[in-house]
């Protein structure tokens, strides 16, 4: 309340300064701003507690993790737990499995969804409305309810405990066909007309006209497919029995059983499991934020 009053006289001169900018920063810090920034900082710190606590536990010597009351810092901080976890090798193996299957899912999803969205957006063919309705209807089906017949199918195809068995059922993402088609629909046809006049075929038009114009939405769909596939638990959990073939989320689920009450090692494996996508997030933070905005507001 008090924060806005000092700016009132300044806005009188406002039109002289370029518009669109918020009123100049006040020099004196108002009590409202102090309260706001204090609350915001505290909220953010509270939200980080689980991650910080996992890290704090993971660098304690195993004997100190169960000392009560809990302490945040250990005088004997060590990376021993990480060394033990990495020495077993399974976390690295699971990370590699996750990486391979996630790349397969992301690439295949992007390719087939882009092609389908382009087909639905730009061409008229027999049965198109019915087929599109069929695809859209698929958004409503919760994939979790199909795990039993999907597993039977994978058994029949001999794909249990294989990368393809983990990846293939995950590439069917009708919602992305829907989102991409809406985006393609909004691209003016004039660009394509010019390309077509130059003799470009449908594939060429897609590749050199539509796709370059769709980079933001493709990045967003790609990132969210990647995050979704990397973190998918139920399907990989069902289709893998062999610990060697488990993905990271599934493998880590067995960690408590393996490490027992060695909490530093359990937390070290959790931190190791968190790192890959946290790195992806830090690298692509801007794309993720704008991607959510695009998908959420337009879709």
């Amino acid at each position, binding site marked *: 309340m008090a924060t806005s009053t000092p700016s009132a006289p300044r806005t009188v001169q406002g039109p002289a300064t370029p518009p669109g900018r918020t009123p100049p920063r006040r020099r004196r810090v108002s009590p409202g701003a102090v309260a706001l920034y204090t609350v915001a900082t505290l909220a953010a710190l509270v*939200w980080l507690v689980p991650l910080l606590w996992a890290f704090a536990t993971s660098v304690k010597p195993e004997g100190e993790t169960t000392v009560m009351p809990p302490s945040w810092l250990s005088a004997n901080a060590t990376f021993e737990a990480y060394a033990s976890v990495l020495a077993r090798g399974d976390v690295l193996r699971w990370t590699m499995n996750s990486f391979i299957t996630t790349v397969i899912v992301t690439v295949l999803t992007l390719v087939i969804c882009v092609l389908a969205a382009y087909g639905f957006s730009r061409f008229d063919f027999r049965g198109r409305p019915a087929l599109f309705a069929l695809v859209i209807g698929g958004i409503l089906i919760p994939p979790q309810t199909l795990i039993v017949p999907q597993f039977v199918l994978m058994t029949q195809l001999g794909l249990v405990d294989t990368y393809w068995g983990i990846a293939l059922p995950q590439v069917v993402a009708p919602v992305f066909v829907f989102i991409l088609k809406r985006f393609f629909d909004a691209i003016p046809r004039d660009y394509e007309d010019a390309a077509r006049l130059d003799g470009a075929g449908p594939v060429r038009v897609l590749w050199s006209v539509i796709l370059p114009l769709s980079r933001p939405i493709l990045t967003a769909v790609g990132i969210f497919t990647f995050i979704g596939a990397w973190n998918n638990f*139920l399907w990989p959990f069902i289709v893998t029995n062999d610990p060697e073939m488990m993905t990271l989320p599934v493998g880590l689920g067995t960690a408590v059983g393996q490490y027992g009450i060695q909490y530093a090692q359990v937390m070290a494996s*959790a931190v190791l499991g968190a790192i890959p996508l946290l790195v992806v997030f830090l690298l692509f933070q801007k794309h993720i934020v704008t991607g959510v905005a695009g998908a959420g507001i337009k879709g």
Partner: protein
Amino acid sequence: MTQNTDAPAPRTAPGSATAAPRGLVDVRRRPSSWTGLWFVLPFLAFYALFLLWPAVVGFGYTFTDRSLAGGDISFIGLDNWSESLTDAAMYDSLWNTLWFTILSVPLMVLLALGMALLTDHARRLGWFLRLSFFAPFVLPVTVMTLIWGWMYNPSLGLFNGTLGRFGIEGPEWLFSEDTAMFSVVIATAWWQVGFNYLLYLAAMQSIPKDVYEAAAIDGAGAWQRIGRITLPMLTRTTALIAVLQLIGSLRVFEQIYLMTNGGPNFATRTVIQYIYDSGFVGLRIGLASSMAYVFMVLIIIASVAQFRLFSRKEG
């Protein structure tokens, strides 16, 4: 398939000489009546094999006593359906799913709104707040459950340890029927609220600045601007987030399975876990499939009703 490849070929041959007119006359409508189908086909193939086919086959299973262990399969009519519709444990798991949804949806909408408001106002902390509020969303579910299971540990965990420092005896968290569901909801909110938060944040930042400036000139304070401008302009976003969160919450399974395995005493067993238990632990594929169909129908009804409601608001 081979017949189709022949079809467009003759057409392009005469067309290539007159490529320009063809493009001019009929740019987007049927360059060939089959071309579009070719683009759609790869997706449809995956869709048919991995979604439609299992859906149809699964429906067939509901009328059989098929077992995951193999053995003879015989037609048993509607037995599975009547069993799943009269099973008290099925209704318990439906209730647990609903209870989780009732607890989690308002919490995860309001938390997201509050966080987005903080971020929108405390601009200088922008990157730090986004990092902190959204980072948990990218964690694999098992990382989340390992960390929260450890913090919730009744005798050695962070929560009860800290409470104990003040002489308070903490609850049993995941190990008591009374508190298990609440504990799971809190952990889920921490883990998944980031997506709703980003949706809110994007919507807030797309509100034109001059609206706020005009209000400020009129003497509206910060709270008034939130109440009179921000919140009313977020109605659509709130509806969208609530719908998405509702559908997401109804599908809950993984984090609860990992944290409590449906316990204690089945107090947190959700429908999807019951389907999983029946099919992959009890090995009764037919029964599990009929449960899955009951649940699928409920979800579809809920989704369609929500979208109806939502699109009416929009229009």
